[in-house]
C-alpha cells in the first residue's frame, strides 16, 4: 500500500537469518483517539474504522477497551498490534488478580508498563505501531496519559492521538476546564469528533464514547454524529487554491 522501499542491505544488518522480523509499516489502522478528564473520571472517544491504506475496510473495530478494574485503553495505529497489546495486558491483569491480596494495578501502573513495552520494542527496531491513550480512576485519583510507538509518554488533562492532536486539542485547550459535568464533557468530545469527521479522511461516522469512574466502566453502543455539509465554505473548496482538488 505504501510506497516505502525496504532495502535488502539494511534488512540483513538488522534482521536474523530467518528473514526480516521487524515491523516496517502498518496495514490495518485506526485513526484518532481523544481522552479528557471530567468531574467524575475520564471520558474517551474513538471511531470504529479500520482503514486498509486508503480503503475504509472495517467499520466495526472497537478501539476502546477496559483493562482490569481501574483503567481504559484506547489505541490508534496498527490494529493487530493493538490486539497484541491487549494480550500482554490480559496476562498482566491475570497475574495481578492471581495474587488475590487486595492490591490491584491502577492506571498509573498500567501506563508505565505500556511505556516500558513500547520503548523496548522500539529499541529492537520492531515497534508496536500504535499510539495509546490510557485513562482511569483509582482511590479518587484521576489519571490520563498517552504513549506513542517510540515510547514517548506523558500525562495531561486532555490527550489525543494522530490527527486529534492537530484538530481536537486546540479546541480542548480553549474549552476544557476542571470539573466538567458528564453532559458537557460528552458535548465537548462530540464537537472534537465532528471536526475530525469533517477533516480526517480516515474517520468514519460511527463512534463509541467510553466512561470510567471510580465505580464503573461503560463503553457506549456505536452511534453516529449529525453532520451538515451545506456550509458555504464547502461549496467551492478550491476557491483559494486554483488547480488543486
Amino acid at each position, binding site marked *: 500500500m505504501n510506497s516505502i522501499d525496504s532495502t535488502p542491505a539494511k534488512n540483513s544488518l538488522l534482521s536474523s537469518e530467518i528473514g526480516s522480523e521487524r515491523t516496517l509499516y502498518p496495514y490495518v489502522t485506526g485513526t484518532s483517539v481523544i481522552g479528557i478528564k471530567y468531574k467524575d473520571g475520564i471520558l474517551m472517544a474513538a471511531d470504529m474504522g479500520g482503514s486498509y491504506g486508503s480503503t475504509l475496510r472495517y467499520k466495526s473495530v472497537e478501539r476502546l477497551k477496559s483493562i482490569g478494574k481501574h483503567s481504559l485503553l484506547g489505541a490508534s495505529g496498527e490494529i493487530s498490534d493493538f490486539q497484541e497489546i491487549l494480550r500482554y495486558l490480559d496476562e498482566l491483569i491475570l497475574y495481578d488478580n492471581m*495474587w488475590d*491480596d487486595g492490591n490491584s494495578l491502577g492506571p*498509573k501502573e498500567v501506563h508505565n508498563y505500556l511505556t516500558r513495552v513500547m520503548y523496548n520494542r522500539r529499541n529492537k527496531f520492531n515497534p508496536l505501531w500504535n499510539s495509546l491513550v490510557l485513562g482511569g480512576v483509582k482511590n479518587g485519583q484521576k489519571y490520563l496519559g498517552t504513549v506513542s510507538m517510540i515510547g514517548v509518554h506523558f500525562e495531561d488533562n486532555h490527550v489525543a492521538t494522530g490527527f486529534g492532536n492537530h484538530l481536537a486539542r486546540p479546541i480542548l485547550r480553549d474549552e476544557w476546564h476542571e470539573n466538567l459535568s458528564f453532559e458537557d464533557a460528552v458535548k465537548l468530545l462530540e464537537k472534537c469528533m465532528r471536526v475530525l469527521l469533517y477533516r480526517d479522511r480516515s474517520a468514519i461516522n460511527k463512534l463509541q464514547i467510553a466512561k470510567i469512574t471510580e465505580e464503573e466502566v461503560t463503553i457506549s453502543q456505536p452511534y453516529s454524529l449529525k453532520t451538515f455539509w451545506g456550509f458555504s465554505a464547502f461549496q467551492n473548496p478550491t476557491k483559494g487554491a486554483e488547480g488543486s482538488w
Partner: protein
Amino acid sequence: MFRNQYDTDVTTWSPAGRLFQVEYAMEAVKQGSAAIGLRSKTHVVLASVNKANSELSSHQKKIFKVDDHIGVAISGLTADGRVISRYLRSECINHSFTYESPLPVGRLVVQLADKAQFPLEILNVGHKSFGVGVFLIVEADGRFLLDQVCTQRSWKRPYGVGLLVAGLDESGAHLYYNCPSGNYFEYQAFAIGSRSQAAKTYLERKFETFMGSSREDLIRDALFAIKETLQGEKLTSSICTVAVVGVGEPFNIINQKTIQELIESFETKEEEVVEAADQGAAMQEDRSPEGAPMDI
C-alpha cells in the same frame, strides 16, 4: 535437638516428616541478637540490639532500608541477611521502574518466602547432568510449595536469617516475619533472636493498644521491649538501633542522639512514676493506723 542420620542434607526427610536442616537454620535465627517490630495503623517501628564484638570494632548492621516504604530487621547470619536485602532492594526497584509505583509489602514477602524454597540458581546448572526431581508439598495450613530438589547434589543451604519486614502499602501499615523455612506471618508485634521471649512477653501485654498508638508511643514501646531483652544491662543508644516507616514518612533509621534523648526522657519518667508510687505507699502506711477498722 540431637544429631541424627537424617540431618546432614537439606534434601533428606526424616521418617517423622521433618527437614532437620531447615530446623537447624531456624536455630541460627534464635542465636542471633534480638530484633523486634511493632506496628500501628499508620506506622511500623523496627528495633534491634547491636552489640559490637569489642570496643574497638563497629556494630553489625541489622536494619536495612529496602525502599522508601519498606525496611527489614534481621536476626541470625547477618551475611545471609545482606544477600537477602540486596535481593529485596532489587525486586523493589525493578517494580518501581516498570510500574512507577511502590511494590506492595505483601507481595515482596511472598516472593521472599518462595525464594527460600526455590534455589533458582541451581536449576540451570543441575538440570542436565544431575537428577532433578520436583515435589509438590502441602503444608499443614493448606498452602502448597513447589520444592525443586536436586537429588544428587545439594550445594544450597537454607538461609540462616529471620527477617522482620516492615512496610506501608495501600491497605495500611504491615509487619511480617519471614523465616528460613519459607513461612511468613503477619504480626501486630513480634520479637526474634536471643532473649526475644522477654520482649515478646512485654509486647503480649501491650499489643492491643498498638493499633491506635502514636509514632512516639510505638518507639517508646520498642525501646522498652529492647530493654527487656537486655536482662538488666543498661539501655543506651550505642547498643540499639531504631527505625521507623509511616504514612508520609519514608523508612529511616533514627539518629543515635535522638534515641539517647528518648531513652533518657523515658527513664526520668519512670523514676518519677516510681517515686510517686513510693510516696503513695508511704502515705498509705501513715494513714492506715488511723483509718483501720477495729477488729472485732
